[in-house]
């Protein structure tokens, strides 16, 4: 120790301090490095990949490179020239032989319904490259769609390398043949409604959890330890039970020949079974039950720290119970309310399995559509765009919450 001290005596103390500090920082970094790497690879990279997929337009440039190049010179008015038709014919034949024509067909079919058939049937019927100068007539003879401007603007709009198509579609917008942004056709404009529905269910469930959870948390925080622990088990037991089990239990309870309807009919209160499941009511019921512990636990932890002395002081100063609660107790629990609400809301808007099992066709939330486009129809562009919009709105709400929760005086607006 002393030897080391003497050995380093020629180095100024300041530098040695810095060195020690740096070593400490490196050690600390080494400790969090595995977690950082884990987060980077399992969280940040996939999310960046998802956002990239929502604008990535790879299909048409990869399958039809010559056509894309030929259309760069086309001004979008009338029909393109003979070279573009010849390039298209060459691309279609090459893609057919490589077996990837359907990949481009799928992408173009999003823009013009029926394009898949046009492209694939052209691929089947186009035996050889048309003689120079006849490509246009040959293609139009095979499929009349090649004589329409719409087909060519569709190819041009999907020429990559990036596209706004999916992000626009996720908010019910589209581009017309002149590349101007317009509202999507009535039949296909569903995503704004679905987002609204998702947030509506999210807010509803959050409100229900707060109304039900607040008194429970209060009771838990103010009972003697023994009894409060016993009650806490009742909160935690469902919390530890599988989500699927709890959701299916609600089906058994709420179905038309289930426990609730059976009891009510037996009591003679109703003649016909009530419709309690496969609708919005069932979704609210099951989701509130599943998410309740996420509201109770943060509230409880904050309420535990609220000293009862404040309420006694308020009472001794003559405040009626309601006033004391609203102006003294409630403001002190705001951090718990905020944390609980944010947690429940963000979990709720991402819910998939519960609404899928206990909701009707009109109760599906945005996650259902993301899953549908990811696995069923492999429209990953749209799935990613919907995911990106959901992520963005969640971030915006979280920021808003931060502003609201932190900008509040914890004195509940009492002027000192």
């Amino acid at each position, binding site marked *: 120790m002393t030897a080391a001290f003497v050995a380093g005596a020629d180095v100024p103390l300041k530098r040695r301090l810095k060195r020690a500090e740096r070593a400490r920082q490196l050690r600390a970094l080494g400790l969090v490095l595995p977690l950082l790497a884990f987060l980077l690879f399992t969280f940040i990279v996939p999310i960046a990949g998802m956002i990239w997929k929502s604008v990535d337009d790879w299909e048409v440039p990869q399958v039809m490179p010559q056509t894309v190049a030929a259309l760069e010179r086309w001004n979008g008015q009338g029909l393109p020239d003979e070279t573009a038709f010849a390039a298209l014919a060459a691309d279609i034949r090459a893609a057919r032989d490589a077996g*990837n024509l359907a990949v481009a067909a799928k992408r173009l079919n999003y823009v013009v319904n029926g394009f898949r058939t046009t492209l694939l049937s052209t691929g089947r019927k186009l035996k050889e490259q048309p003689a120079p100068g006849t490509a246009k007539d040959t293609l139009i003879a095979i499929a009349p769609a090649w004589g329409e401007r719409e087909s060519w603007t569709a190819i041009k709009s999907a020429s990559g390398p990036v596209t706004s198509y999916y992000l626009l579609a996720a908010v019910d917008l589209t581009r017309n043949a002149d590349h101007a942004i317009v509202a999507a056709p009535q039949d296909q404009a569903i995503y704004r409604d679905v987002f609204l529905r998702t947030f509506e269910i999210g807010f509803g469930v959050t409100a229900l959890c707060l109304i039900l959870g607040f008194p429970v948390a209060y009771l838990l925080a103010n009972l003697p330890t023994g009894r409060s622990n016993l009650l806490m088990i009742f909160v935690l037991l469902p919390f530890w039970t599988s989500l699927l089990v709890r959701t299916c239990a609600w089906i058994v309870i709420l179905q038309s020949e289930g426990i609730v309807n059976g009891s009510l009919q037996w009591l003679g209160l109703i003649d016909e079974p009530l419709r309690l499941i496969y609708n919005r009511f069932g979704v609210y019921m099951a989701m509130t039950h599943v998410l309740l512990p996420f509201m109770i636990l943060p509230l409880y932890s904050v309420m535990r720290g609220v000293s009862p002395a404040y309420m006694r002081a308020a009472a001794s100063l003559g405040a009626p119970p309601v006033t004391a609660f609203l102006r003294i107790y409630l403001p002190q629990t705001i951090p718990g309310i905020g944390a609980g609400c944010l947690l429940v809301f963000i979990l709720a808007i991402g819910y998939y399995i519960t609404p899928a099992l206990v909701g009707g066709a009109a109760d599906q939330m945005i996650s259902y559509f993301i899953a549908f486009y990811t696995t069923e*129809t492999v429209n990953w562009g749209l799935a990613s765009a919907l995911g990106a919009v959901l992520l963005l709105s969640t971030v915006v709400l979280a920021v808003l919450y931060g502003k609201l929760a932190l900008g509040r005086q914890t004195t509940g607006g009492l002027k000192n």
Partner: protein
Amino acid sequence: MSKIKVALGFAATFTALTALASAASARDLTVVSWGGAYQDVQKKVYFEPFKAAGTPMNDESWDGGVGVLRAKVQGGASTWDVVQVESEELALGCDEGLYEKLNFSKIGGEDTYLPSTVNACGVGAIVYDFVLGYDKDKLKDAPKSWADFFDTKKYPGKRGLRQGAKTTLEIALMADGVAPADVYKVLGTDAGVERAFKKLDTIKNDIVWWKAGAQPPQLLASGEVAMTSVYNGRIDAANKKENKNFGMVWNGALYTIDSWVILKGSPNVDAAYKFLNFVGKPENQAKLSEGIAYGTSNKKAPSLLPKAILADLPTAPDNMKSAVEINTDFWLENIDRLTERFNKWAAK
């Protein structure tokens, strides 16, 4: 100092684990199917005997979705070799190059199989139907068609349908009097789509939407619905295994074919062909039909079955008479558009 060691230890373990996870290790053939009652039968008549014949293999189950396969193949190091897929997954995956091109000479030649079950990327595994299912104990008067399904006056009670546009719109059109052979011709027009939704409007408030094949028998058993669209094999399994008394209506049934595919880049291609050859043999396929009421792809399989079993199969001539094949091409072209249209209608 010891802290650094711990951190380094963590880091080393982490990298070792990721390296292990990504190392392509030699593994046994893995076959993936639909789970449930169906896979139990497959285990008994396909997987176990195949293992006993000397090739080690594992089986897993999945819920479908070509996106899953795309992620597996494009992500590299896929853990699956042979997968059973639905017709759309077959077409989409084949287009995207997710499957090996199938060499039929290794599995008995193309002529061995029914023409509709031969595909460049896959070979038919089963033929099955969406039928109208009902509980005989609850409905004294048996329904005869999809028109009865929509008649809530004569047959009170709720109805189960598969959530989404596919199968629902075909059923609505047949209920509205469209002949089975013309369903897709009508559905291909805007007026036809409107007509289907208008028909659905008539029972909108009585529909319970199901999402997984296991749900409709449960809905019938719990009395939640009086009738439902359902896979024919599930009705058969409920009757055999749970002593239910469910009935089926073959009139206007929608049939489709599931196929076996070999995933691109599989390290077990030889074993996979061995397996496909084994499950393509008529004597093995006949055993499957005895276990669960699905038709199979080998032309000779029906001749090895008793009459009584044959009568309840999708491939029985009587049951094929008024059945419609679900049109894969139509749905590949229209699924996104009609899904959006369906959800628009549902939210109204």
